[in-house]
């Protein structure tokens, strides 16, 4: 039993190290993109100049990412390959922890961190097969290294039997869906941050500023596409969050004899839900689409992290399942 858990720890630290490697590759990729942009935009300028001589005066400059000389982002590929490898170790760590415990591996803060980050990377990798989001690789791997590292170093607890309230099918459903939702909201958050950077860059380009901002942004989709992507992740995350809220209430009814009692964790789950409802509304409200709604998405995710890290560790309430004492 202990040896399986030891193996889990070993696998986890290996995964962290590989993720760190992926982070470095992705970071160099962004840096490389900057120089790639330089070459490409030099070419694009000629094209635009030639085009503006023609009749089509309101033609928009061709975004760099659509030019024929599309850079191949070798470093990003290395980053992705490392992320996949890291994820496999991470999966191994999670599974061995589950076998060591003889139950689902998400019953204390250490395990929540492990499964949550596992899902973040999984969602990212699955989405990668359909949409090129590798520009988020630095963020994703960075976040995962920090969360996993903190969990492994500070939140680790040995496997102990479950306390009675956790002995429920809802542990499997509620916590898993919450983690999945967190993964989706994390991607939405990252995209919203990119959107804000891109908006700023686009504004500065329009103003003709000499240095419109980090140059890698030129290889990213435009701000409105980033916003749409962020929105799509956020709404799926929001639906799962709504489900988490309902499932939690059903569980609370069985375990604590009431479905809602404004326990600290319940309260924060509700606050997050309302924030994202606000975000979805903001997207449909004139004057709020774009930058203000992006800030709401960012605030919402900040609350998710707060709920996870701060509330679990420092607030006392019925949800005292961090396993830390």
């Amino acid at each position, binding site marked *: 039993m202990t040896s399986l858990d030891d193996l889990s720890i070993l696998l986890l630290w290996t995964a962290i190290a590989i993720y760190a490697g992926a982070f470095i590759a992705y970071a160099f990729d962004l840096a490389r993109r900057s120089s790639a942009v330089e070459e490409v935009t030099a070419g694009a300028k000629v094209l635009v100049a030639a085009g503006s001589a023609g009749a089509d005066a309101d033609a928009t400059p061709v975004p760099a990412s659509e030019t024929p000389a599309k850079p191949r982002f070798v470093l990003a590929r290395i980053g992705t390959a490392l992320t996949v490898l890291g994820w496999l170790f991470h999966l191994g760590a999670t599974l061995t922890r589950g076998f060591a415990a003889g139950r689902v591996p998400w019953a204390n803060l250490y395990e929540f961190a492990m499964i949550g980050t596992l899902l973040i990377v999984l969602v990212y990798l699955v989405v990668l097969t359909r949409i090129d989001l590798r520009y988020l690789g630095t963020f994703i791997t960075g976040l995962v290294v920090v969360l996993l590292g903190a969990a492994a170093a500070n939140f680790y607890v040995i496997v*102990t039997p479950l306390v009675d309230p956790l002995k429920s099918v809802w542990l499997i459903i509620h916590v898993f869906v919450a983690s999945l939702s967190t993964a989706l909201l994390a991607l939405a958050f990252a995209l919203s941050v990119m959107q804000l950077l891109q908006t700023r860059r686009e504004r500065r380009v329009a103003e003709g500023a000499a240095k419109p901002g980090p140059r890698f942004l030129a290889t990213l989709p435009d701000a409105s596409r980033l916003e749409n992507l962020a929105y799509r992740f956020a709404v799926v995350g929001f639906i799962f969050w709504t489900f988490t809220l309902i499932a939690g209430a059903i569980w609370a009814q069985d*375990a604590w004899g009431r479905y809602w009692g404004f*326990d600290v964790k319940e309260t924060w789950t509700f606050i997050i839900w309302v924030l994202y409802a606000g975000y979805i509304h903001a997207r449909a409200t004139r004057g709020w689409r774009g930058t203000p709604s992006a800030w709401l998405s960012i605030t919402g995710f900040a609350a998710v992290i707060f709920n996870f890290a701060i509330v679990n560790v420092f607030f006392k309430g019925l949800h005292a399942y961090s396993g830390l004492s």
Partner: protein
Amino acid sequence: MSSSRSERPEPQNEGASAASDPLRPSDHIDSIDDEINQPRLGLVGWLRWGWRQLTSMRVALVLLLILAIAAIPGSIFPQRMADPNGVVQYRTDNPDLFPILDSLSMFDVYLSPWFSAIYLLLFVSLIGCIIPRIKHHLKALRAQPPRTPARLARLDDHRTVEREGSEQDAAQAIDVAEKQLKALGYRVARYDSAESRGRGRVWSVSAERGYWRETGNLLFHIALVGVLVTVGVGGGFAYTGQKVVIEGKSFVNTLLDYNSINRGRFVPDDALQPYALTLDSFDITYEEFGKPGAGQAGNFKANLDVRETDGSTRKGSVEVNHPLSVGGDKVYLLGNGYAPTITVRNAEGTVLLSQPVEFLPQDSSMSSLGVVKIPDGMPEQLGLIGFFYPTAVKLDTGAFASAHGAVNIPLLTLDVYQGDLGIDDGTPRSVYVLDTEDMTKLAGRGTDVESIQLQPGETADLPNGLGTVTFEDESPAGATDFTESVKRYVSLQIHHDESAPWVLAFALLALAGLGLALFVPRRRMWVKATASDDGIRLEYAGLARGEDPTLAAAVDDLVRGHERLLDDAAPRRENPVKGA
């Protein structure tokens, strides 16, 4: 072309405004800004203006954000409804700050006037917003898809295909498209025209799908109202009570028999079903020594004899996560503890008290604190404060502690107080607390007399010859150790709330509505055929109503499918020209 462009600055608006479009508040991103509609300065005008503000997207959004912020203090300060002991503690720790915070309802945030005001405003806004939308949507559900726009090429998702053929083929092509769209779940309408700007006759079909999107959105918002109303109304008909039951003892579900009960305002005195529960036994397991989590208690299970209201009896059990249903109520296991049986006699040997006394656990090893009050039969009133250690160990300091939650080496220590218990004036006092203010300590720390220490079956003298106290051994006959010498008790919570399933139903309805509202694409499609001497020109166009990332693919599919159907009817002769 450029002249008509100035009439409609946004090409996307082509074919957009129609009776089947969902109704939106005026500051919604899709609606045409009509702020010019200034109110007249009459009272009615202002009221109307205020109502429009309240039911606008902006106000809904701001109220949502305020609601989120307003919920935060309740997670920072202890709340009376969730953590009453925390509130008492806070008062002790911050005597100066407490009254100020309390006057701001910081300890009852979710029942406070300001919090209520926010969510009530939000729901007024919500209802005001959805009623006109429901009316509108009911009409839209019966409306025809809108007329085919004159210039489909202006739409973002537009394809053109040239084919050989006659006027007859053109009409047929649209017939085929109509069937095709219908089969895809679209509602369709034909808009054929005789003549179009000298370019010959035009046949077209207009199609729309995704009415479920708006239905889902309305369902979601209505269900939220449903949740709020059922929670609010349900609370009035609900009751929750606590009762401590000792092994072998019974509880009858009547108002009198509860230790405490909270009743909703509409619960009459006779609402309770007089069923009875007897605690037969209590199961508990401990993790073995040497294993991780050693000593951790779990698998709590209260085995009960249930006598239903109609007199029939059955066995039942209550576990965490598995409440017992009886008489329309649910019975939960909240806690457990030990109730050592204590007998007190006075100097004459008269028994003044002989019963199991519930001790409250103070730590995970079940060191427990209990109080015995003897109001009569002694020269002065007597109070005992006791500690019970199921597995007693002596610490280096000389104090006792419990090493394990199970009864192995049971020990009861008692401090004795004499004086006024403070219960004669009718002030309600907790049975678990001894108010020692008007009492003198006779035995225990700080006095000359050591506190009384008893093992099961032992009797000790009370100080000053007041009498004796006995820790009764409850072990069954023939027992060889102390493991069954002390009775256990459980604290049960009995909860009655018929609204809970309704709340759940509305919550699930909201979830379903949300799924529809966010994932059903709402779109319009048009297929138009124009016949000329060169052949027929087929135009396809799609228009998204709301978030619709797959529209372009859907238009492509439509074109491909249509071509295949036409080719099946007549072989194609020319390559299609994709364009616009």
